[in-house]
């Protein structure tokens, strides 16, 4: 119980919120990192998945990338990148590692969603004389939307969690409060940082949950894969 009250004291100390090592700064870093990486990985994964899904090719590729991604430790990728020339540009290794880890769920979900579109609907669209491009935008993508969005949700939550590990390799973000706590051998700070990170992750997950409930029917998740 003692550790918890110490952690609470650490959290409520205003000195810990301000400055470059402060909670606000770390929180902003974490948020910016997550959003930038989410946008980058969407820009990479979604066009590829939509085109592959439309053509009906590369399914095995999408699933395999997803499975291999799970086997590679984020931490190892981060450190490997840190030791390469990329390591010299500040947040470079973190961004690359995070994007690498957000791409598989986006790719798999979008691909599965595109392939899950009822074939008879696609044939009807073709019968109406739609071009491939029209079919993709007006028929397949709208119907695949729930799965595409659930991929975005999985990627976002995974990014928040993985951005924390970046702190182990000297990156910024909320995880830094935890690693700094370990370096100072200050259990209250470690626990306080962990609570902050956990709450932040839960808030992000909660926001997606609320968004999904409020969303119009066509965007609502049907279930998760990957």
């Amino acid at each position, binding site marked *: 119980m003692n550790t*918890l009250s110490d952690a609470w004291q650490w959290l409520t100390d205003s000195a810990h919120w301000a400055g470059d090592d402060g909670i606000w700064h770390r929180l902003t870093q974490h948020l910016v990192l997550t959003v930038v990486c989410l946008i980058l990985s969407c820009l990479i994964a979604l066009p590829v998945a939509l085109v592959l899904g439309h053509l009906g090719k590369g399914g095995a590729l999408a699933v395999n990338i997803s499975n291999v991604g799970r086997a590679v430790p984020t931490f190892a990728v981060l450190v490997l990148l840190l030791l390469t020339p990329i390591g010299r540009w500040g947040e470079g290794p973190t961004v690359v590692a995070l994007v690498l880890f957000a791409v598989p769920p986006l790719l798999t979900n979008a691909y599965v969603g595109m392939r899950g579109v009822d074939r008879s609907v696609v044939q009807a669209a073709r019968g109406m004389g739609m071009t491939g491009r029209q079919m993709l935008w007006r028929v397949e993508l709208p119907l695949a939307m729930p799965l595409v969005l659930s991929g975005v949700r999985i990627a976002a939550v995974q990014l928040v969690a993985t951005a924390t590990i970046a702190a182990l390799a000297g990156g910024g973000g909320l995880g830094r409060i935890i690693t700094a706590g370990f370096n100072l051998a200050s259990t209250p700070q470690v626990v306080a940082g*962990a609570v902050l*990170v956990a709450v932040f992750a839960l808030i992000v997950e909660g926001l997606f949950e609320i968004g999904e409930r409020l969303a119009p029917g066509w965007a609502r998740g049907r279930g998760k894969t990957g």
Partner: protein
Amino acid sequence: MTAPPDDCLARNEWICGEYLSTRRQIIVDAVLQHLELTAVSVLIALVIAVPLAVVARRWALAAGPVLALTTVLYTIPSLAMFSLLLPVYGLSASLVVAGLVLYSLTLLVRNILAGLRAVPEDTRQAARGMGYGPIRLLLTVELPLALPAAMAGLRIATVSAVSLVTVGAIVGFGGLGNLIYAGMNTYFKAQVLTASVLCVVIAVLADLLLLGVQRILTPWTRAVRS
């Protein structure tokens, strides 16, 4: 005065045979620790997950809270999870195991429950008609039929656990993660690459092993396919 040895260790190359031969014992120890942490965590998670899934299957009221709780636990970033458990377990291997158990639970409970729910009602009624009691029904009909789905969850949980163990380096019990962490601080390329590759190799081998176990345990699925 002798000149410093001009080998790949001195040149700090990524791939280095010298490293493998001179640090064999350290690498073997790290691999063993990695395997032990993974195996113990996944086994404990399995022992907890089966009854939870069975309870959630039998009493619909329990399913909501069980799934919600395990999902919330899964959302918490690994670094935070290990740190939150710090006051309870201190700097120990149990800390890492406890964190990994919590992560594996979600995947296992979800998959076992899905497997149990997929058992056809006809099958259950046929067994009941043959005079099977609830326990015998569960052990000899429902659980075996849920095996493929459960094994799929077990494979994902194991592969994820192998990669998550590395984060345990923050408390000094990260198996190969320890080597990566130490290698990062000393800019030791061969050590980081070797440990990272070994992590992936362990994950792939564990996955193949479980796939083999699944094939042995579920001979009927092969008969259906051929």
